[in-house]
């Protein structure tokens, strides 16, 4: 009997000891998470089932979301509807007080047929402030703004072809362009349209070849696509013939090269990504994109021949991103710089750096310089009373971006300042995502000047504030 109770005690003792060292259930600990769906049944047969009452089967812990919580399938159509108003903050004798009061409906769709991908992005817009609504697709005027209609396909897996109306961008600058000679829409930029409208479409053929040595992009535009430059509508400018600002009363007339295939443009980029550093070489053969010349007989602006050769590098630097871009602008119609009516050749150099200073706060700075070649020749041939350009035009930019409220609120300021011109251009901006579809934004375009005829200073009477409300779908 003694041995019997002795053994019993031992047994109990062992059980107690075992229980202390090997607690029977993990779920006995309050802070331990329950196993998620999909893991409960994976206990090996050799393992004990958790004791009743502590089994995960009875858990009331977090449940996985059902399929119902997932957003529906994404449709083939997308786009937005928006209203946008821009108001001058001062009077301009040559322009309306409202620079924009438009409603815009963008419809975008893609369709793939075998190996071809067709894309269409079209904007319908109406602006009661401006009384002409005739569609001019090339200028982006009227109630239709055709942004993109193109086809993309691949050849032999190493060549991509994109043919049709398309938006094109390359280079490393932020709102400053050296080797990106694709058309810009400065008017949209200055009156406060969404920044995507800074890029005007090109009607072009883009051939991209991807090899181990480097990637090559060639863009051929059969008929010159100029910038949508400031010519007096909506935005007044300095008219050097009149010696004053001018606007819709005296629109700047131009003679644009517009013969198909004869007045064509070609742009080339050879690029290579080496361990995250993007190296590119560029070439361009075409015309000054905004009037770079003047015809004294007709008094019209011209687009003299231009070639550009350049390079860029971009990659991680210190705690941010650094970029360097250089370009040589060869003004082919004025190779020696002795024609005062055509821009001289010049160098354009850009140095940039961007860093996230603290979480959700980003600072970007750039230094840009245009250096006019043959400056003395230019001075020698400059007509009397003509306004003299500087040999160096320098621009410093700064971009401050702060995201708040789970990145639903974005506040930013982009500032251009030119120490050589003594002028500045400020773009304050605030954007709030109300929900998944609605967004509201407001901003301003503020030009500060010391003199009336400088690059940014000439636009001083166009200072404006704008607001926009957009529904995206």
């Amino acid at each position: 009997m003694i041995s019997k109770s002795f053994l019993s005690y031992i047994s109990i003792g062992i059980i107690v000891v075992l229980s202390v060292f090997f607690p029977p259930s993990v779920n006995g600990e309050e802070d331990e998470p329950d196993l998620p769906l999909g893991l409960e049944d994976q206990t090996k047969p050799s393992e004990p089932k958790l004791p009743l009452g502590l089994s995960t089967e009875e858990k009331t812990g977090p449940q996985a979301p059902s399929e119902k919580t997932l957003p529906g399938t994404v449709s083939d159509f997308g786009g937005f509807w928006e209203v946008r108003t821009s108001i001058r903050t001062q009077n301009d004798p040559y322009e309306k007080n409202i620079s924009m009061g438009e409603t815009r409906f963008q419809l975008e769709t893609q369709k793939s047929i075998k190996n071809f991908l067709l894309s269409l992005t079209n904007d319908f817009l109406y602006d009661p402030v401006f009384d002409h609504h005739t569609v001019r697709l090339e200028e982006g005027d009227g109630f239709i703004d055709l942004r993109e209609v193109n086809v993309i396909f691949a050849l032999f897996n190493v060549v991509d072809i994109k043919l049709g109306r398309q938006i094109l961008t390359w280079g490393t600058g932020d709102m400053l362009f050296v080797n990106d000679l694709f058309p810009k829409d400065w008017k949209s930029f200055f009156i406060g349209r969404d920044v995507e409208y800074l890029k005007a479409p090109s009607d072009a053929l883009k051939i991209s070849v991807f090899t181990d040595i480097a990637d090559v992009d060639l863009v051929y535009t059969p008929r010159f696509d100029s910038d949508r430059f400031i010519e007096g509508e909506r935005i007044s400018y300095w008219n050097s013939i009149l010696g004053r600002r001018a606007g819709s009363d005296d629109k700047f007339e131009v003679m644009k090269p517009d013969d198909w295939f004869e007045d064509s443009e070609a742009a080339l980029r050879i690029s290579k990504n080496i361990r995250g550093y993007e190296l590119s070489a560029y070439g361009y053969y075409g015309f000054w994109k905004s009037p770079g010349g003047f015809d004294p007989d007709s008094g019209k602006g011209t687009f003299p021949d231009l070639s550009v050769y350049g390079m860029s590098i971009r990659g991680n630097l210190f705690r941010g991103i650094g970029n360097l871009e250089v370009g040589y602008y060869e003004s082919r119609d004025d190779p020696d710089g002795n024609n005062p009516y055509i821009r001289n050749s010049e160098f354009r150099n850009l140095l940039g750096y961007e860093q996230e200073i603290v979480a959700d706060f980003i600072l970007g700075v750039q230094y840009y310089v245009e250096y006019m070649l043959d400056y003395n020749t230019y001075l020698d041939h400059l007509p009397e009373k003509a306004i003299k350009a500087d040999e160096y035009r320098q621009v410093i930019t700064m971009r401050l971006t702060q995201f708040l409220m789970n990145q639903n609120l974005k506040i930013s300021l982009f500032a251009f300042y030119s120490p050589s011109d003594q002028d500045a251009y400020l773009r304050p901006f605030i954007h709030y995502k109300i929900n998944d579809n609605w967004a509201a934004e407001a901003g301003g375009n503020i030009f500060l000047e010391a003199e009336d005829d400088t690059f940014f200073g000439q636009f001083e009477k166009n200072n404006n504030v704008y607001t926009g409300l957009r529904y995206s779908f």
Partner: protein
Amino acid sequence: MHQIKWVHCISLNICFTLVLLFLPVSPYAKQPSVEEIVQKTNHMAYYQGKDGRAKVSMVITDSQGRKRHRLFLILRMDEGKTEKDNSPDHQETGEQRLYVYFLRPADVNKMVFMVWKHAKRDDDRWLYLPALDLVKRIAGKDKRTSFAGSDFYYEDVSGRNIDDDIHELEKVTNTYYVLKNTPKHPDTVEFSYFTMWIHKSTFLPIKIIFYDKRGKELRIYETLKVERIQGFPTVSASRMRNVKDGGETLMTYTKVEYNLSLPASIFTERYLRKAPRKYLK
């Protein structure tokens, strides 16, 4: 005597059974080292298969109950890996490429975010904005910022470098290894340490709690659902709760596929500008 024998037998049986019962999960039996646990967990969370694809849905709820949605496709490729390197013991180089194609909300439709993740230097990150045809570099050294406006941080999605923390095995339970991870450079992060509950048999992290400097909970991650896909235990639903601001994000993975043999060229500028539709279905 009979009785004695009987009791004896029972006692021994109980003992034996108990020993058998608990031996396989005993913390002292075949216990992997801390390094092994960390390495395997890292593998299971971010490196299964040589590449992969998933459609990810996020439901972000703020403290006032307002909901926002994100929908995107992720393509992932581990550099220098073959399909044979599927074992959790495989030594990852940490060199990984990610391609994130946004579908929703509508204002970011067709936007692409691309990362070249590096183990020994800063990641390279790009953003493609289709309306401008703009390939942008992202200055994002700070990995402790919200990913796409959610309660998940960039580092939660792409993985935190295991060498950035000191790992201690806090305890071992029947089901979990509990690790305490303390950052080597506390000034670079918002937390003072985080604990991970790692499922013993799969090495999947089931719960992660980030604590602030005063030891209060900051954010809590939970795995809600696990599915076996092509043999890989895969987290198909998870949640991140931001204890501090009261928001939470539910993340759901669908259309998960491993070992698609993604070409490396997908993760280049070519496919930023031209989405690889074949792999984004």
